[in-house]
């Protein structure tokens, strides 16, 4: 039975009932842009250092996030570690984000706010490296790339739990 269904699935015309659409080429799928899993799957080539990121941040990011990434129009990106269980939690990249890869994925697709998509892959690595460094997560000499970034362990890596609702009984 299992063999039969596998054979059926292997015949596209029989399995595809409606026949809508066409098969995209690998190039077309790549053309949609990078998308990154927590284990780093999908990270492209390129690399950046905290020092490169510092200059980039001053030029492209500080206007909204503040010179010291303490937040302005855009959110604060630094500090807050140790505050999550207090009455005044400060949620930042350093205190809250569970995966460093998410930071690359987000900056690459959404930042800078007024020009998303304008940064090169290496510039995104540099921005990520700078934010990790000012949060004390990597050292000033650490280079971020597709191999090193997934190995970065964020301070709040174990800070997330599944949805526990419904959590209120009458």
């Amino acid at each position, binding site marked *: 039975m299992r063999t039969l269904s596998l054979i059926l*699935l292997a015949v596209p015309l029989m*399995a595809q009932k409606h026949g809508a*659409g066409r098969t995209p080429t690998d190039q077309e799928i790549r053309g949609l842009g990078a*998308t990154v*899993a927590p284990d780093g799957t999908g990270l492209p080539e390129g690399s950046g250092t905290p020092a490169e990121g510092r200059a980039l941040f001053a030029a492209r990011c500080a206007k909204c996030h503040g010179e010291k990434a303490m937040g302005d129009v855009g959110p604060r990106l630094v500090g807050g570690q140790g505050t999550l269980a207090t009455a005044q*939690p400060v949620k930042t990249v350093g205190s809250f984000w569970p995966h460093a890869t998410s930071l690359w994925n987000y900056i690459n697709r*959404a930042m800078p706010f007024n020009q998303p998509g304008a940064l090169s892959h290496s510039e995104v690595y540099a921005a990520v490296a700078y934010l990790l460094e000012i949060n004390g997560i990597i050292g000033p000499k650490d280079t971020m790339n597709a191999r090193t970034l997934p190995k970065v362990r964020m301070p709040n890596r174990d800070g*997330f739990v*599944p949805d526990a609702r419904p959590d*209120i009984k009458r």
Partner: protein
Amino acid sequence: MAKTSRRQALRLGAALGSGALAQGEEARLLGTPLGPYGERSRHVTSVRTMRQTRTPEAGSSATPLAETYGIITPSALHYERHHAGIPDIDPATHTLTIHGLVERPLVLTMAELRRLPSVSRIHFLECGGNSGGEWGAKTGPDVQRSYGLASCSEWTGVPLRLLLEEVGLKPKASWLIAEGADACRMQRSVPIVAALDDAMLAYGQNGEPLRPAQGFPLRLLTPGWEGNVQVKWLRRLHVTDQPYMTRDETSKYSDLMPDGKARLFSLPQEAKSVITFPSGGHTLDRPALLELTGLAWSGRGRIERVEITFDGGATWRDARLDEPRFRLAFTRFRLPYRWDAKPAAIASRATDETGYVQPTREQLIAARGANSGYHFNGIKFWRIAAGGQVTNADA
């Protein structure tokens, strides 16, 4: 305006001839001519409210729930929450690509999607951050500014299940990474679970194509779940074996508990209701028999019961529910109410088909603390003063 009126008057005069009017009767002007696209009356002025922000492309606007009738929100008043503005997309060139852990990756045009078997269903949509101010002291003065990030439409689209069968999921396929074509390429991870049976790729809203603000030409609709996961301007579904832990599902839309842990993927919007009349900002001008009314909804199914209190929660009476009641949709409730010019504290409490009863704000805070920010569904009280002024009782 004056020019039109004069022309209409001349036309009227020519048709009747001068002196044809009965003595003492004013000639009535013709109305405006027919037109290709309707506008609402200039006397109807309901609008969405927006928070002051320096980045208006990344804000939200709230539906005037107290100024809508029935259960359908006019498309032009549907709440908005955007992160990088509303893109201007030509449906002739827009495509959806489904790839990853599938037997047959597909790219589909809008014309191809619209030719597939479709469904039309009425469902609410609510931002996961709706009523977020109610956790703290910043509760809104009226329904719109406290509960207005919720709306309800008839949606038309292709069942998601049909397309997943079309591409053929590989054995390990368990998540969809949905991606929008807006400037920030909004991305959310969507678990492939039983609840997704309600999901569709929607291209229609209230009988017409989606409004640009609602994702034209295509959006993901996962009825009952928080709005953010229902990605607008959908361009890609990447099928994977794990969530991608994107910014908007980890650092945002997660619920921070008092112990410092945050809950992930709190997707269903739990049962909720609010009285829309009388509500904050209204004034009852004299003792009278009124119709109290409001809206209830649940992301876990049908609304089965709505109770009303007039005495701050001491006693409750059942409201009448409009039929038909749809799953995962607004339900309109009504109850005759004789206001006798005495102070009152009124609220509604919804129960859904799972038996879940809408909790109080105090119960929510006892369970989750006051810093979780999202997914507030507590009972909302309005205070009616002896003079008839209705205000937010929690302010």
